[in-house]
C-alpha cells in the first residue's frame, strides 16, 4: 500500500506492507535511525516519536496509521542548526551514557516542557516512567530536564524584557 505523511516537516510517500511498524518504517525505509527499538512488548520506550505532537511508542503504531499525520523524530529536534534546550540539558547534566534510550527520552522531555514549562521532579519522573534507561539511574535525566526548563525560563525572560 501507499502511505504519505509528514516526517520532521518533510512530505514523504512510500510503498509499504500494511503490517509495517512505524519504527521500522522510520529506521529501515527513511534511514532515520535515531529512533530505536528495544523490546517486543511496548515497555522500553526507546522508540518514542511524536505523532501530531503527542509522544507515542512507534513500535506500537503501524506506519499505515501514521498516514496523513505528522511525525517528529529526534532528528527533527534541532532547528536551524540550534540544539533544543533538552538536547543541551542532557549533555550538560550527563543525562545519557550509551545513548540508546536518549532519543525517546528527549522526545518525551520536549513534549512535557511544551505542556508544563516548569515541572517538578515528580512530574518529570512520571512523564518518563514508560521508558527504561538501563545506564543512568534517571537522576541525571531529571536534572537534564530541569536544566532545560530553567534555560527556557531564562530565555523567555530575556525575550520578554526585550519586547
Amino acid at each position, binding site marked *: 500500500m501507499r502511505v504519505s505523511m509528514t516526517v520532521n516537516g518533510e512530505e514523504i510517500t512510500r510503498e509499504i506492507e500494511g503490517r509495517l511498524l512505524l519504527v521500522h518504517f522510520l529506521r529501515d525505509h527513511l534511514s532515520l535511525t535515531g529512533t530505536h527499538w528495544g523490546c517486543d512488548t511496548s515497555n522500553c520506550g526507546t522508540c518514542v516519536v511524536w505523532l501530531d505532537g503527542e509522544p507515542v511508542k512507534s513500535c506500537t503504531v503501524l506506519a499505515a496509521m501514521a498516514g496523513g499525520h505528522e511525525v517528529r523524530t529526534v532528528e527533527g529536534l534541532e532547528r536551524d542548526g540550534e540544539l533544543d534546550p533538552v538536547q543541551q540539558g542532557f549533555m550538560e547534566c550527563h543525562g545519557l551514557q550509551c545513548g540508546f534510550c536518549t532519543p525517546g527520552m528527549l522526545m518525551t522531555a520536549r513534549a512535557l516542557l511544551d505542556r508544563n514549562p516548569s515541572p517538578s521532579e515528580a512530574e518529570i519522573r512520571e512523564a518518563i516512567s514508560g521508558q527504561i534507561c*538501563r545506564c543512568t539511574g534517571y537522576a541525571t535525566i531529571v536534572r537534564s530536564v530541569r536544566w532545560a526548563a530553567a534555560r527556557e525560563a531564562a530565555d523567555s525572560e530575556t525575550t520578554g524584557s526585550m519586547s
Partner: protein
Amino acid sequence: MTTVGHRPLDGFEDNDQKPIGHGRMLRKEDPRFIRGMGRYCDDVQLPGMLHMAVLRSPVAHARIVSIDTSAAEAHPKVKAVVTGAALAEKGLAWMPTLSGDVQAVLATDKVRFQGQEVAFVVAEDRYAARDALELIDVEYDVLEPVIDVRKALDPAAPVIRDDLEGKQNNHCFDWETGDAEATEAVFASADVVVSEDIVYPRVHPAPMETCGCVADYDRVEGRLTLWSTSQAPHAHRTLYAIVAGLPEHKIRVISPDLGGGFGGKVPIYPGYVCAIVGSIVTGKPVKWMEDRSENLTSTGFARDYIMRGEIAATRDGRILAVRTNVLADHGAFNGVAAPVKYPAGFFGVFTGSYDLQAAYCKMTAVFTNKAPGGVAYACSFRITEAVYLIERIVDCLAYELQMDPIELRIKNFIQPDQFPYRTQTGWVYDSGDYEPTMRKAMEIAGYDELREEQARRRAQGELMGIGVSFFTEAVGAGPRKDMDILGLGMADGCELRVHPTGKAVVRLSVQSQGQGHETTFAQIVAEEIGIPPADIDVVHGDTDQTPFGLGTYGSRSTPVSGAAAALVARKVRDKARLIASGMLEVSVADLEWEKGSFHVKGDPAKCVTIQDIAMRAHGAGDLPEGVEGGLEAQICYNPENLTYPHGAYICVVDIDPGTAQVKVRRFIAVDDCGTRINPMIIEGQVHGGLTDGVGMALMEMIAFDEDGNCLGGSLMDYLIPTSLEVPDWETGFTVTPSPHHPIGAKGVGESATVGSPPAIVNAVLDALKPFGIRHADMPLTPSRVWDAMRGVPRPPI
C-alpha cells in the same frame, strides 16, 4: 593517604581549575547521541543486505527427530535456510565457550534449553525472515528436563550433556579456595556461629540494545567484516579465527556504538556465527538482531548461586572466619565469562573488607536445562555474589549479637597499615582506608538521626529500615601470569600519535558501551601530555584500527587500558623531551615539564610547547642525535595486580505494612575508586549501578517453571527499574589511589551494582526486624516480603 571529599547533592565538583586533564568535562560523544546520530549495529545498512532470523526451541529438553525446511525454502523472499546438520558438515555445529566448554551453534542432536538455536533463515527483509521461521517444521521427542538445581546431581536425573564423551551426570565442576581445616578449627572454638542459606537468583544484564551483528563476507578477498555488539572485539576476532578457520588478518570486527553491555556482550553467541555463515552462503551482507525475548531467554544470564554462608565470631563482635558452600547453576553449557584459572570468577573475595583468621569456600557447579551464561553482569567476575554473601551474613551476625551493623563492620575492617593485605583466600588488596569512607556515608546519611527516626516510627507501627553494606571489589583483570581467557593474556594495548600540528589520536583496545571512553581517555592522555582533550581523538572498537587487547568488562577499562593510555603518553613525552632539549639547546636534565610545555630550569621564558615539538618532530631541520622523526608510541600494558576499589553504602527503605511494597526512600553511596578522572562520569556510573541494585534486590529474576519455560522472557515479566522505583541518589567519595596503577585509578564501572543489593536487602530486613526475621531472599517483591512478614520467607528457587 585518603582525602575525603563530599559533593553538594545538586551539582558537580568543578574541574579542579585545571584547563586540561582530570576533572569534570562534558562528554565528547554526546553531540552525536543527542542528535540521534549514534551508530549502533542495527543502524548499519549495506547495499544488498539480507536479514536473518533464528528458529529457537520451544521446549527445554528434547531430542530432535526431524527438521523439514522445504516450505521455508520455497518462500519467495528466502535466500537460505540452515540447520544444525548443515553446519555439522562444515564442522561448525559446535563452538568453544569462554570457559573451555562447547556450545551448540545450532542444535544437532538435542535441544538443551528453551530458546536454544535450532535453525536460521536468511531472507530479503526482517519480516519475511520471521515469516519463514513459521514454515520450518521440527519434530521433537520431549525429554524430562532438569530444572531444579538442587536435584541436578540426583543419580536418576536425566543427563543433559550426553554430547560429552562418557558423561554420566550433570556435574560441571568443583572448586574450592581457602583452608578447610584451619577454618573448621576456628569455627569449632568460636563463641558465636551464624549460618544462613542465601540465594542470589538468576538475573539478566538486559542492555537496552539487544545483541546482533552485520556480517559481510567478501568471497573474492576471503575477507570478513563483522559489525557486532561486542564488548571485546579483539578477543572475538581471534576466536572467530579459531572457530571458523578464517585467517585472523582477514577478519575485521567492528564494535560500533553499543546500547549498553553490562557483561552481556562479552560472549560470542551462536547468532553471530550463524550470520557469518549466512553471509558466506549467500555472498551478501547479513544482518541479525535478536528481539527482546531472544535476548532474555538465550543470551548470558548472571548469578544463579545458592549459597550457605557461615560466620564465626567472638561474643563482642570480632569476626574470626567465614565459610561458604555454593551450588552454582550453569545452565546447559558452561558459558561463564571469566579468566580460565578462575571457574568461579573472583568469588574468592568473599572474605570482604574484614581482617579474618580463616576462610573457606567449596563450590559445586552443575548443568541444568536452562540458558547458558554466567556472565559478569556489571560485576567483576562473580564479585557481586561474593559481596552479597559476606555483607548479608555480617548483618545476620549483627542481628544475633544485637550490635549496630556499622559498628560491627568498623570493628573488623582491615586497617590502613595492613595494606597491601593478603586475604585468607590469597588475594592481595592493593590499598584501602575503609573507616573514613564508612564515616563519610554515615555523615551524608545522618545515620544517628535516621536511627532515632526509625525508633519513633517503629513505636507507631511503621516499617522503616536502614541498611548498610561495605564492599571491596577486585577489578582490572589482570596480570597475565595468572589470568587469561582461552589462552589470551588479559593485557591491553594503546597507541598514541601526535600529528605535526599538535593534535593527537589515541587508539584503544577496549570498547565503550556507554562509559564515555572518548572523553575519559582523552583526559588521561591530556593530563600526561598537555594537549587539550578536544584535540585528542579517541579511536576504539575496530580491530583494523586499534592495537590488540581484551576489551571492556570487569571494570577493566580504566585499571588496564587507562594505565596503558597514561604510559603511552609518558613514552611520547619522553621523546618530546629529547626533541625539546635539541630545540632549546640544553641537556634533558635541564628541562622542566609543565603541563603542555618544556622550559629551561630557572628560565620559564625559554620554552617550547608540545605543539612546537610535534611540528619539529615531523618537520625539516635537525633532531638530536639518535632521535627518529615522528612523535608516537605504542605499548601493551600488563597489570601487576588487580585494583581494589571500595565503598560504603547506606539505604533507607519504607515498607507499606498493608501491601508489603518496599520503597527505597534514600540511598547514600560513598565510593573510593582511587584517582578520579572525570567526576561527572564516575557519578553516572555509580547511579546506573545503584539502579541495577534496586532491580536485583526488589524486582528482577529470570525464573523458570518446572517444565523449563522461562518466565522472564519479556520486559513485562522481567522487571527493570523505571524512574518511579528509584530515589534521587546521594553520592560522595574518598580517594585512596592504587599504588601500582600509573595514575592511581582503580575503576568504578561496577562498584555500585556490586555494593548496592546487600544494602537494600539489609534495609528491608532491618525494617522487618519487629517480625523476628533474619533473612529473606531477593527479589523482595511485595509477595515475598508479605511472606516474610508472616514469618514464612521462602527461597525464590
